[in-house]
């Protein structure tokens, strides 16, 4: 379990990185936190000719709020998210999600951009960011573009990023004040990728009925998935257990999760349904606490 040979660059700026990507993009992999890539290298399941290590690109490591937007540099570590009090206050869904990522050693090293670019549908951050309607900045020597989650995540471990493109920033619109959230997942073992989960945001109107709902499903498909049917169903509803159950039923209406030794597709479908219901209940009970 020793990695195969590769060439190695460690640029210190975005520009330098983009130049390298233009030159070597097809044969290179970006190395960020390495928490998913290095195991694949050690198993020799990934064998890029070249690694472009962006850990010295300090300009990618930031977390700030401006213009109603949370901006996260792609190299920001999970632990920085976890520790940010501003994040906890303004986007608590993301804080709750990041706390469930792996273990402390992984969060100290893993990056937000790495998690997004790895595009594992069972990972917490892509699902939370999907629920938050985040947008993703990609840059190359050719220019830059902004992608929505449904544009970025193509399938299991695959994004729409071109070989010469670098994910530089994730922008998260700040949820409206009073928005409640829930993030729930189930794994067989502490810290593992979950078998199913859900991220939920609920915004209520003055009469207490739902004005806006966002539901994103974890490990329900080959990408993070918004449950738009269930979201539409919730709008205008007053929350109760029956409504939550109905929304959950709708959320998994046409999903077909991939089964494996830890659970069949059918099992996972039921699990995601339960997670949606619980995330909705969690969001609702959070509102009651605040009230």
């Amino acid at each position, binding site marked *: *379990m*020793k*990695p*195969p*040979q590769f060439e190695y660059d460690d640029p210190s700026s975005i520009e330098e990185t983009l130049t390298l990507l233009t030159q070597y993009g097809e044969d290179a992999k970006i190395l960020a936190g390495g928490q998913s890539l290095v*195991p694949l290298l050690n*198993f*020799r399941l990934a064998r890029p000719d070249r690694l472009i290590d962006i850990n010295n690109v300090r300009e990618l490591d930031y977390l700030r709020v401006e213009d109603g937007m949370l901006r996260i540099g792609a190299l920001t570590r999970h632990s920085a998210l976890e520790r940010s009090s501003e994040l906890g206050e303004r986007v608590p869904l993301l804080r709750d999600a990041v706390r469930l990522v792996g273990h402390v050693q992984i969060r100290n090293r893993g990056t937000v951009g790495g998690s997004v670019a790895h595009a594992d549908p069972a990972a917490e951050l892509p699902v939370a960011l999907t629920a938050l309607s985040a947008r993703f900045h990609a840059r190359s020597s050719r220019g830059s573009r902004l992608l929505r989650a449904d544009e970025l995540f193509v399938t299991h471990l695959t994004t729409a990023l071109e070989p010469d493109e670098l994910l530089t920033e994730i922008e998260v619109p700040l949820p409206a004040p009073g928005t409640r959230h829930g993030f729930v997942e*189930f794994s*067989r*073992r*502490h*810290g*593992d*990728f979950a*078998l199913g989960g859900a991220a939920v945001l609920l915004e209520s109107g003055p009469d207490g009925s739902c004005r806006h709902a966002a539901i994103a499903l974890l490990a329900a498909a080959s990408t993070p998935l918004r449950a738009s049917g269930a979201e539409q169903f919730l709008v205008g509803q007053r929350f109760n257990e029956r409504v939550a159950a109905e929304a959950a039923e709708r959320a998994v209406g046409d999903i077909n999760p991939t089964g*494996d*030794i*830890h*659970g*069949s597709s059918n*099992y996972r479908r*039921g*699990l995601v349904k*339960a997670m949606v219901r619980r995330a909705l209940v969690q969001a609702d009970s959070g509102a009651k606490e605040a009230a």
Partner: protein
Amino acid sequence: MRKGVIGTSLPRKEDVPLLTGAARFAGDVQRPGMLHAHILRSPFAHARLLSLNAGPALELPGVHAVLTQEDLPPAARAIPMRMFAQQDLEGYLQPPLAGGVVRYSGEPVAMVVADSRYEAEDAAELVEVDYSELPVVLRPDEALEEEAPRLHTGPNRAGGFRIEFGDVDRAFAEAHLVVEERLEVGRHAAVPLETRGLVAEVDELTGMLVVYGAAKIPHVNRRILARLLDRPEERIRLVELNVGGGFGARGEFYPEDFLIPFCALRLRRPVAWVEDREEHMRACNHSREQVHDVAIALAKDGRFLALRDRFLNNTGAYIRTHGLVVPGMTAALLPGPYRWSAYRCDASQVVTNKTPAGTYRAPGRYEANFVRERLIDVAAHRLRLDPVELRRRNLIARDDMPYPTGTHTDGHPVVYDSGDYALLLEKGLARFGWEEMRRWRDSAPHRGIGVGFFVEKSGIARWEYARVEVTNRGETHVYSGGASLGQGLETVLAQVAADTLGVRYDDVSVFHGDTATIPDGMGAFGSRAATLGGSAVLRGATRLRERLLELAADELEIAPEDLDLVDDAVIARGAPATRVSLSALFELARPARALGSNTQPGLSEEAYFLSEDMTFPYGLHCAAVEIDAETGGVAIERYTVAYDLGRAINPQLVEGQVVGGAAQGVAGALLEELAYDEGGQLVAGSFMDYLLPTAGEAPFVDVLITEDAPTSRNPLGAKGAGEGGTAAAGAAIANAVADALAAEPTRLPITPERVLTLAREGAR
């Protein structure tokens, strides 16, 4: 009065180097000019090996050799059995490197030796091997079908036997109730945190072949290695370093245990091999996979009349060193703590295209206890009797001890030495809070409680060696034929020596695992190291004490019976100023002086201890679980193990054994399974998919150690402590889940999906 050190929880001698990073494990060894080996393994579960071309690999810079089966000497065609051997199994033994056919994914095909492990792995990718795939069989019941692919020349049922007493058929015919089930235990494994590792070199000054990284049974493995290399045993030195856990799997003689020393001899360079985790999962012994068709016959009052079982043990592609140990243990101990008038068990050792299997903590018994205790609960449900009450009615009574069970292992009758099972049952239930937990169970849905009773065995292979010495500094050195896999052997043997001699615990050092300083030994398996190893130390220390007192008696001119040994000197009783230190006695015992006065020179006593028979500790696991009916998750609310082991030499260490053992047993019931796909690839081949429990899953385990039934089969009165924590965990968890769901689980592990399936379909 001197305070005894046996029975006290002294802190371990082993700890400080381990805590500071100073300890040395096999992978830490670095020798001048050392090369690194990597094993090329078969990617197929069953295939003909058509050709192998090492040429391109040998061209890579840094590569020194590629070994294949053609390079091996004739003596090394097959690795022999060391236990429960049977002649008809010899056609199923594993060669160190595969010849014409590979029989499991992961089987060694060639060995690459290079300057670094990185380069060795690069080169292995360049070895060209042509395979022609053969059909695969993975389940033991399917392997016995007429049209199943055959692995070896002989049938897929490599061996088997029957154990029987009483009139089973009549008992079943006359029974009030017969309960019959197919019960299965999934394949899981020991998986110590340190993978295996070996460094072999030929000492250029002495010509001695030295192998670092021995474990569990260094002397036994030296014997096997000598035979395969056709080399005198005394020209081979095996050295045990720190060992990162064993649990039955590490330390057996594997292909690499031959290949690495062989290669060092051939290349005349030190050769290192450190197993990586991916290989460990496919190469090191698996265990536990059994399928039972089992039935119990009961009288109307719940009396057990007869037990009848036919089971298959899936031993994987080859018979390894353990021969028939695992099915042998299952069949011998399946009857458990109960009285039976008749018993019949047909055991089969079946080969399939999976990694070969061997022992894992409580081998054969984890499976047997699950099968028997699960069946008893099913019977209780049918009889509408409380499962605990049903057990109570059938326990062997204290007055029946010693109790000949009517079974046997490896030719020895199984005779329980001592025990008060009824007392242990009541103590265990009280400690668990059975009545309280019943109320807890009744107060919400999806909660359940369950028990598993077990009788363990300890002290298999009945002898051990020890040498106890006083040094020139007046300290005590103990040399043991036992071995340590991390369980605290040095501490326990030092306690026995200190207590027996009368010296300070801190002044005792314990050595083990080096065949150069220890002439013979058996090792550490089957919960034997403390009981048999300790008994040998006790015997040696007793003799040494007598000699020290006699020597001091001559010197002080006081009768030996008026002397005592306290700390570092022999003193006159009642007049401690009259004394002679142990270091002075050492000088008196030097040969020049001792021979002159016609006494034995040196302060060293060798002792062998031979036990008349195994001992049989016993205990109870109690579990309370709560099930999440939506996810299938099983949360353990309370877990208690009550364990009678006669005498606990170090209670803290015993508790550590029980808690750690229970974590493994519970994980085997809920988490761990070596799942294969249809083509025979191990799917759970990494730590991402093979679910060792973390601190988040391992339950808090409350331990009650009792000493109500010491054994008379060794002078310490101690029975083994290593395996009871694991033995009935699968049984207790399964019975608690059954109670929670009002359904009957028939297979371990009980995964979340199986929980939901049971909840949906299995309601009784």
